């Protein structure tokens, strides 16, 4: 096994105490939660903040003159401010609350697409996209008579940037790419890719669902036009997510969903819309989830997030080394620059059987196509098993994973 840098300066045992679920058992074994890319666990501070809102502060926002409504509005808008600082947006109004990354990409695809994409135009995606960054664009392309162009990848699961450069042209209307691949763990060089797109005047949407959990981000430094992510992958409750968009784009785009809260005036002849962010926030949002997202950001801010990222990376290296030592295991996605996602297959054993047997050992991994069927087709596998790590996972848990994989191989020997 390769020598792995010793993990220091990260008190993982103390961190684990912040997450109540981590002390439970599953199938009479201590839970080993390695499905963080699907959804991360929730710290007590976030649970407490959400409960407090529900117990003491709940009311509808943005419309009441009464105390509770104003209080809930203030708390919700404070969460938006936290999001702004977390991703370093220029203005909190550029941060739109949505249900999650999927809804966020749909918002941009339909709103931007219906206004700015026309007959013969082109949309650039990459070969490693999640279905939620493929299907909305396909529908828009079909509706508008546009074409989808795909940046290819190599056998390590890295985008071939020279091919991307060739795909860009005057017909390109948007580039939509993952910051980090959910199925392969590849970290894409999005800052450079955005700069290239901007030379053609083309805006870029970054699917950041898998990047924000793993390392600090700065949307202004990246110069991202749209930056979309989910709260439930960064230790917040489900049904909280964010579309960051540059004001110049958001102002020019039509509403996505319509109804209450997003209007300025309505008559049967004509409706005028509220300014951003309300223009894109029709109806009552997930108030508790949004406030929970704010609390999750507070939690992350109180940590040394850089140290967390470094620790997590050392876990990935350790897990990669342990699994590489098992001859039957094949790691899918071996990019030079990876976040802590480890997809693998075992010769002759279907990933679902791997998942079930690991579950009996209390180990939660994902088994399936990870909503990335084109990636599975590229690597010619029906599915993979995927272990994904957070900063609360431990080296011992990686050992349990590796030992249990040996057991899986024995069962099927």
């Amino acid at each position: 096994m390769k020598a792995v840098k010793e993990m220091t300066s990260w008190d993982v045992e103390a961190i684990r105490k912040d997450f109540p679920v981590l002390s439970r058992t599953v199938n009479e074994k201590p839970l080993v939660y390695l499905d963080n890319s699907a959804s991360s666990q929730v710290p007590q501070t976030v649970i407490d903040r959400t409960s407090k809102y529900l117990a003491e502060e709940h009311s509808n926002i943005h419309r009441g003159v009464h105390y509770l409504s104003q209080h809930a509005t203030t708390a919700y808008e404070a969460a938006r401010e936290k999001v702004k600082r977390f991703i370093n947006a220029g203005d909190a109004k550029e941060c739109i609350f949505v249900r999650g990354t999927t809804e966020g990409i749909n918002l941009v695809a339909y709103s931007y697409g219906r206004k700015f994409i026309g007959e013969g135009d082109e949309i650039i995606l990459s070969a490693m996209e999640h279905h939620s960054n493929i299907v909305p664009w396909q529908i828009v392309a079909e509706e508008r008579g546009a074409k989808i162009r795909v940046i290819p990848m190599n056998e390590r699961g890295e985008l071939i940037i020279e091919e991307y450069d060739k795909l860009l042209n005057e017909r390109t209307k948007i580039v939509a790419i993952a910051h980090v691949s959910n199925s392969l763990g590849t970290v894409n060089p999005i800052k450079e890719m955005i700069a290239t797109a901007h030379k053609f005047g083309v805006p870029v949407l970054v699917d950041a669902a898998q990047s924000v959990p793993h390392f600090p981000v700065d949307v202004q430094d990246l110069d991202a036009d749209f930056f979309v992510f989910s709260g439930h992958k960064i230790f917040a409750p489900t049904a909280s997510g964010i579309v960051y968009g540059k004001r110049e784009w958001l102002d020019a785009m039509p509403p996505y969903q319509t109804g209450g809260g997003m209007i300025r005036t309505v008559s049967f002849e004509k409706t005028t819309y509220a300014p951003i962010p309300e223009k894109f926030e029709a109806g009552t949002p997930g108030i508790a989830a949004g406030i929970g997202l704010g609390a999750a950001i507070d939690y992350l801010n109180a940590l040394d997030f850089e140290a967390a990222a470094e620790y997590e990376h050392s876990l990935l290296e350790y897990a990669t080394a342990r699994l590489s030592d098992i001859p039957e295991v094949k790691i899918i996605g071996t990019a030079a620059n990876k976040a802590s996602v480890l997809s693998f297959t075992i010769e002759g054993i279907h990933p679902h059987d791997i998942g079930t047997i690991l579950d009996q050992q209390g180990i939660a991994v994902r088994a399936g196509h990870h909503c990335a069927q084109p990636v599975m087709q590229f690597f010619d596998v029906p599915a993979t098993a995927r272990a994904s790590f957070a900063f609360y996972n431990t080296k011992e848990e990686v050992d349990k994973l590796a030992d249990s994989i040996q057991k899986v191989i024995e069962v099927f020997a």
Partner: protein
Amino acid sequence: MSELSELYQEVILEHNKNPRNFREIESPDRTADGNNPLCGDALRVYVKLDGDTVTDVAFKGSGCAISKASASMMTQFVKGKSREEAEVIFDEFHRMVTGELNAEAEENHLGRLKIFAGVLEFPARVKCASLSWHTLHAALQGEGEVTTE
């Protein structure tokens, strides 16, 4: 691994390794495709009929150990049975893996297919065990395609 041993019994592991009737049938009378989009299991069932009798049945495709073993044992079990008998067994199998039929206590025709009762403890895997049966049912009904989700 007590519960596990109930799911991954020797018989199931053996059928997974050496699936029976894992082949195409030339000029079949009926075929149907079965897909489980959630896990990517995909198989095609081929049926040869003589009047009302299933004279040959085979399958091709990819899937997990449970779906492969279930398909393999299904082909062995159904061959030589009448369409009506096959449909009765499909119905009983379906009810067993969804917990509506207690195969130990209630009368049935499932015989050694009873080992699949173990999937009851693994809700995520019920569809793996029943995919081939739904596909056979679709083939016998003359429907070309079936999806389980």
